[in-house]
């Protein structure tokens, strides 16, 4: 068993990215194929987003014993279209205190990265049309997976600037929370991706998928020992600010979060970007850990090399879209300190430890056993440091804590609070 696993680790193909379409340089045929690919991808992405919004509302109403949207079109399928059309006809408000330029810029910064991430996701195999061979993927740059992280980094600006430019309390708080949350989980996210890159030996998404093509036992989910997938899934849910990490738009506390002041289609664009991100991130999870368009057993259906990968890809992605909805229905929202603790004190050390373990096992099988005590010692140190830190935050914290009333105790005011709440 371990020997077989060892072999799967050793047989990763060594290749960079690159769509074979561009091998002979640019000509009109190539540009035409690129244009068609981009148009199809964009169209599919928009329709998928509309369906995803419908799917989420329908599934969540099923889970809550409601009917959900059922008027617009068959089974309410056209509900999103109706909502979008309605939003276009709504009054577009620019609040008094808003910074108009940034306020108008923010939706662009949200939508464009959301659209772009999908570009590097491999959707299927390769197709040959006449003299042109091309991959079923909008683009296959050599730094593929870094592009995903870069775009999700830029999307933070959309949220941050939207909240800041609104000139209002709740959006500001929502956006500050969102930025802190997203950057906190980016570290854990990045390190689980590094673990994948270790065995794939390439940053190209196509190469990452190709390294997992020999059956489901080669999928990174199993090869890397499940944990990177779990870490990645938690981190990506927090990156998407989806439940249970949706503190940025915690309705009970912050009205709508960063988009409270947005109305009309400007709000609609944020909404669109959010759901588009849910789909593309499901696709990214599938790419990194579930073999992308590869079937569970290679060559199970002979002769179906063109359409079956697409079917596998769609099935897996829909499964993850469902899981996100399921999270929303099943899990209560975290408190902000719980969120930060999970991100910094648990996920980051765990992903780092697992990364080092995988690297050791890749070098020499028994290095893993050598690493294990090191990891345990580090864990003990971390536990001790955390204990010290949470004790210190009460005594001489870097940031003083504000007084809080407990029954039977005198009400604490900033003046007589032990650390001076107004310092």
């Amino acid at each position: 068993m371990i020997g077989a696993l060892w072999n799967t680790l050793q047989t990763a193909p060594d290749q960079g990215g690159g769509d074979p379409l561009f091998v002979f340089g640019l000509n009109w045929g190539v540009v035409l194929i690129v244009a068609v690919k981009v148009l199809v991808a964009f169209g599919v992405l928009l329709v998928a987003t509309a369906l995803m919004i419908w799917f989420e509302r329908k599934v969540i109403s099923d889970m809550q014993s409601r009917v959900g949207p059922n008027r617009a079109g068959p089974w309410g399928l056209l509900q999103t279209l109706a909502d979008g059309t309605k939003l276009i006809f709504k009054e577009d408000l620019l609040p008094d205190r808003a910074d108009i330029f940034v306020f108008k810029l923010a939706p662009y910064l949200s939508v464009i990265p959301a659209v772009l991430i999908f570009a590097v996701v491999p959707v299927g195999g390769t197709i040959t049309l006449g003299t042109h061979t091309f991959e079923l993927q909008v683009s296959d740059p050599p730094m593929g997976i870094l592009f995903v992280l870069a775009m999700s980094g830029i999307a933070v600006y959309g949220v941050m600037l939207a909240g800041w430019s609104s000139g209002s309390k709740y959006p500001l708080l929502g956006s500050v929370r969102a930025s802190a949350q997203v950057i906190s989980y980016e570290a854990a996210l990045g390190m689980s991706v590094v673990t994948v890159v270790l065995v794939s030996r390439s940053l190209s998404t196509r190469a990452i998928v190709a390294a997992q093509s020999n059956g489901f036992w080669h999928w990174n989910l199993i090869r890397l020992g499940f944990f990177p997938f779990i870490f990645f899934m938690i981190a990506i849910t927090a990156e998407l600010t989806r439940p249970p990490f949706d503190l940025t738009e915690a309705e009970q506390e912050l009205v709508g979060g960063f988009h409270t002041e947005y109305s009309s289609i400007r709000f609609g664009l944020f909404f669109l970007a959010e759901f588009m991100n849910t789909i593309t991130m499901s696709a990214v999870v599938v790419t990194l850990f579930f073999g992308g368009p590869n079937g569970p057993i290679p060559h199970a259906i002979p002769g179906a090399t063109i359409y079956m990968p697409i079917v596998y890809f769609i099935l897996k992605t829909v499964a993850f879209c469902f899981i996100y909805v399921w999270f929303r229905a099943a899990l209560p929202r975290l408190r902000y300190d719980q969120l930060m603790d999970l991100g910094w004190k648990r996920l980051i050390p765990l992903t780092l430890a697992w990364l080092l373990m995988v690297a050791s096992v890749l070098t020499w099988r028994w290095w893993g056993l050598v690493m294990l005590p090191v990891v345990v010692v580090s864990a003990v140190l971390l536990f001790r440091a955390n204990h010290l830190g949470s004790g210190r935050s009460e005594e001489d914290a870097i940031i003083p804590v504000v007084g809080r009333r407990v029954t039977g105790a005198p009400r604490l005011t900033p003046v007589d609070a032990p650390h001076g709440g107004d310092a």
Partner: protein
Amino acid sequence: MDQYLPILLLGLLGLGFTVFSLVSSAILAPRKKPSAAKLSPYECGIVPNREPPQRFPVRFYLVSMIFIIFDIEIVFLYPWAVVFHQIATFGLIEVIVFAAVVFVSFLYLISNGALTWGPPKTLQSGLPARTSDSTISRISAARPEPGEAA
């Protein structure tokens, strides 16, 4: 650079879609002059009587500064991961040393309470810890009596 042509086109398409939505909304949406109440910041019906806050807890700045350390660590890890199979043991030892250095600073941060958020367990020595019971009793204590003015 040809590989980036589709990304550029997709980005332009996304930009075009956003512009199209905003322009069509500008044409189709009603253009009345909104009232002052509509234009004021939304605070659940309360008229805001002070300037919007431009300050927020310093912890958020702290987190973003700490984040930079980890982000740089990860940026260094990507090229290492790509060539790891070539540098094997040397690469492993290098990265263990590197991770140890980052981990020590991480321990320092945590032991200083830089990453400790949220409600402290006790505010003064002798006060009970925060539990479900304490929260319930606190809330019921804060609620005014029926006869009392709110």
